[in-house]
C-alpha cells in the first residue's frame, strides 16, 4: 500500500495547495459585501474539463491500488510472473500513435480545419482499436502458452490489469465515436472541447499504460520506493 499512500499524498498535496489559494484563512464574517472582484473562477475552465480531471484522478487511484496489490503479492516467496509477449511493445507503439493523432486533431481544430481534424481523429480511433485487438492477441498468445488466470496470482494479475486498462480505453472510444458525429455540424468551440477532452484522456491512458506495462514487464518501479519507506520497519 506504500505506492497508494504516496499517490494519495500527492493528490492531497495538490488539493491542499489549491485550498491554500482559496482564502481559507480569511474571516468571512468580516467580509460583508459583494466581492465584485472575487475570482469565482480564476480562468473559466469548462466544467467538463474539471470533471474529466477528477475522473482521471479516480481511475488513477484504481490503477494505483491494483499496482499496490500487485506489489504486495509480489513480495511473497512463490512469485512467478508470466513472460511478457513481444507484441506488447508493438501495442505500446500503436497507443503512442493514437495519442499523437488525437493531439494533432486538437491542433487542427484549433486552427479551424475540420478535415484535418477528421482524418487525425480517424487515425487515433483506428490505432486505439488496433491496440485493443493487439492486447487481445497478447492474451491469446499467453493463454496458448498455458498461462491462464486460474494458474497463479501473477498470471491473473496480468489479465486483470490489462483488462481494466483496455475497458477504460473502450469507454473512451465510445466518447471518441460521439465526437466523430460532431465533426461536420457542431460549432467549432464544442468540437474543440470534445476533442481536447478525448486527447487528455488518451494521454492519460497512455501514461497509465506505460506505468502498467513497465510494472508488469520489469517489476514495479515502485519497488525501491517501497523498500526505502519500509526500511525503518525492518
Amino acid at each position, binding site marked *: 500500500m506504500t505506492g497508494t499512500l504516496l499517490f494519495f499524498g500527492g493528490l*492531497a498535496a495538490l488539493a*491542499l495547495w489549491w485550498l491554500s489559494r482559496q482564502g481559507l484563512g480569511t474571516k*468571512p464574517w468580516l467580509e460583508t*459585501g*459583494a466581492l*465584485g472582484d472575487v475570482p469565482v473562477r480564476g480562468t473559466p475552465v469548462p466544467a467538463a474539463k474539471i470533471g474529466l480531471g*477528477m475522473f482521471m484522478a479516480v481511475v488513477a487511484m484504481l490503477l494505483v*491500488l491494483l499496482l499496490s496489490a500487485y506489489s504486495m*503479492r509480489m513480495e511473497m516467496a512463490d512469485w512467478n510472473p508470466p513472460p511478457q509477449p513481444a507484441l506488447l511493445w508493438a501495442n505500446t507503439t500503436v497507443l503512442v500513435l493514437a495519442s499523437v493523432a488525437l493531439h494533432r486533431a486538437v491542433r487542427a481544430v484549433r486552427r479551424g480545419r475540420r478535415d484535418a481534424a477528421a482524418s487525425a481523429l480517424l487515425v487515433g480511433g483506428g490505432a486505439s482499436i488496433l491496440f485493443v485487438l493487439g492486447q487481445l492477441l497478447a492474451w491469446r498468445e499467453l493463454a496458448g502458452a498455458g498461462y491462464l488466470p486460474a494458474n497463479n496470482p501473477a498470471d*491473473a494479475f496480468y489479465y486483470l490489469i490489462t483488462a481494466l486498462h483496455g475497458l477504460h480505453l473502450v469507454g473512451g472510444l465510445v466518447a471518441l465515436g460521439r465526437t466523430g458525429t460532431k465533426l461536420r455540424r457542431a460549432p467549432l468551440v464544442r468540437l474543440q472541447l470534445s476533442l481536447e477532452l478525448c486527447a487528455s484522456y488518451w494521454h492519460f491512458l497512455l501514461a497509465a499504460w506505460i506505468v502498467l506495462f513497465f510494472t508488469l514487464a520489469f517489476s514495479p518501479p515502485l519497488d525501491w520506493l517501497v523498500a526505502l519507506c519500509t526500511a525503518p520497519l525492518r
Partner: protein
Amino acid sequence: MSELAHGAGGPIPAAEVPEMELPHPHGWWTTYVFSQDAKVIGIQYSLTALAIGMVALVLSWLMRLQLGFPGIFSFIDPHAYYQFITMHGMIMVVYLLTALFLGGFGNYLIPLMVGARDMVFPFVNMLSYWIYLLAVLVLVASFFVPGGPTGAGWTLYPPQAILSGTPGRDWGIVLMLLSLCLFIVGFTMGGLNYVVTVLQARTRGMTLMRMPLTVWGIFTATVMALLAFPALFVGAVMMLLDRLLGTSFFMPTLVEMGQQLRYGGGSPILFQHLFWFFGHPEVYIVALPAFGIVSDLISTHARRNIFGYRMMVWAIVIIGALSFVVWAHHMYVSGMNPWFGFFFATTTLIIAIPTAIKVYNWLLTLWRGNIHLNVPMLFALGFIVTFVNGGLTGLFLGNVVVDVPLSDTMFVVAHFHMVMGVAPVMVIFGGIYHWYPKITGRMLDDTMGKVHFWVTFLGAYAIFFPMHYLGLLGVPRRYHEIGETSFVPASAQDLNAFISVVALVVGAAQMLFLFNLFWSLRYGKDSGPNPWRATTLEWQTPETPPGHGNWGRELPVVYRWAYDYAVPGAEQDFVPQNQPLPAPTHIAKGEATA
C-alpha cells in the same frame, strides 16, 4: 478587510454567470421519473435509500429476536442469522447512509446552497440514480436466488466469503459483489457532479469560505468517496474473479472440510487492506456530511453563528485527509506486521483532536445562544450525545493494545452503531425535519416529531450503551447465540432480551416517522418560504418548493457568509446571504475591540 467597503454599493448585476442550458422536462415522465433536475434526483435517491433502509431495519428486528430470545424463532438458524447481519450491515452503510447523505442531501442541497441552477452534468446525474437503483435491485434480488444472500459478514472477508461453509456462497456473494460494483460506478457519476458543481457553479460572491458547512461536509466526503471507493471496486472485482474464474488473488492453498481445493498462492490479508482502505474513509464519508448538516441545524435553531467557522472548515479538511492513513486500525489483530500498530494507533488517535474541536464548537455555538428546541434541534442534540459517546469508545478501539481484548466483541458492535449508526441517522432525521418544508412547502407535524425523537434517541441509547458491557464481558460479535460458556453469566441473557425489546420499540417509532412524512404532505401546516428564518440560500428561492432551475430569472448574488445570526445592529436576528444590506459598522468595531 478591504472588501468591507463594497457592501455600501448598489445592487450588483447577477447575470454574469452564464445561463446553463437546462434540459427542461416535457411531460410527466421526464418531470418525475427520468428527471434531470437535481432536486427530483435527490428525492428519488432519498426515497430509494429509505425504502431499502426499511429492509435493513426489519433484518435488525429479526437479528434482535434471535439474540434476545434464542431458540424460540426456529426459522432463524445460523445460516439465516449470518445472512441477516450481512445484508443489514451492507445496506445500512452503503446503500442507506452513503446514498442518502451524498445522493439525497447532496443532490437536493448543493445546487441550492451554492446558488446554482442545477448540477453541472444533469444527464450523468440522472444516470447515477438509475444505476444506484439497479444496484439496489440486484442486491434485493439476492434474497430470492437459490441459497439466499451472502452471509459472509459485511466485511466479506475471503476465503470464507466464497467457500461453501458460508451461506449464499453460490449466488448471494456474486450478486453482492456485482451490486457493489454497480453502486460504485453510479456513485462515481454522481460524485463527479457534486464536486464539479461546488468547484464551478457557485454563484457570484459565493467564496469557499461563505459556503454553509453542509456543503463543505458533503463536498469533502464526496472527494474522499471518489478516492476510496476504487479500493472496494478493485477488491470486489478480484473476489468475483476468484469466485467465478477460479483465480487466486485472495485464496491461499487450503483444505476445506478435508478436501484440497484448487486455489493457491493468494493473500487473504490483501483483501482486508483493500477493504479497509475503502472502509475507514467510508466512516468519515458518512460522518462529514453529518458534521456539516448538524452544524447548520445547531446554528439555525440556536440563532447564533456557528462558533469557530474557520476551525470547522479546517477540521473537515484535516479529518478527510487523515482518514486515509488510519485504515489498518481495523486490522490490529488481523496478523499484519505488528509494527504497523504504532503508526496506525497514533494517526487514529490524532484524528480525535480535530473531531473533538468540532464537538467543542457545537457546544460553544449553543453557549449564549437563543435555543429553539424545534425537532431538528432536538435531533442535533441527540447527535451530539450519541456521537460523543461513540467517538469516545473509538479511543478504546483505536488504541492498539486496548483493541486486542475488545476487537470482535459486542463492544465493537456497540461502538460503531453509536458512532456511525445512531449518530448519522439522528442527523438524517434532523435534516429531513429541517428541509421538508422547503421540499414540500409544508411542515412536518411537531408532536409526532417530538415523540419520534425521544423514543428514537432514548431507545437507541438504551440499546447500544449497555451493549458495550456485553463486549467487556467478552461476548463475541456475530454469534447467533452465546451458548454455554463459563464466563458469561445468565444475567447477560436478560440484558440481551431487554435490548431486543427496546429495539422493537425503536423500530416501531420509525413507522410513526414514515406516517408523518405522508400525512404532513397533505395535512401539514403551510410553511412559507423560510419557516426557520434561516440565512442560507436554499431558503431564499423565489418559489417554495423551488422550480426547475431554482432561481427564476436571475441567480442570487451572495453578500455575506452563511451564519449572520444575531448580528448586532441588524433589524432581525438573521441576515440572509443574498441580502445586500450595508455592513453594520459596529461589527468591524466590535471585532477590533474584542
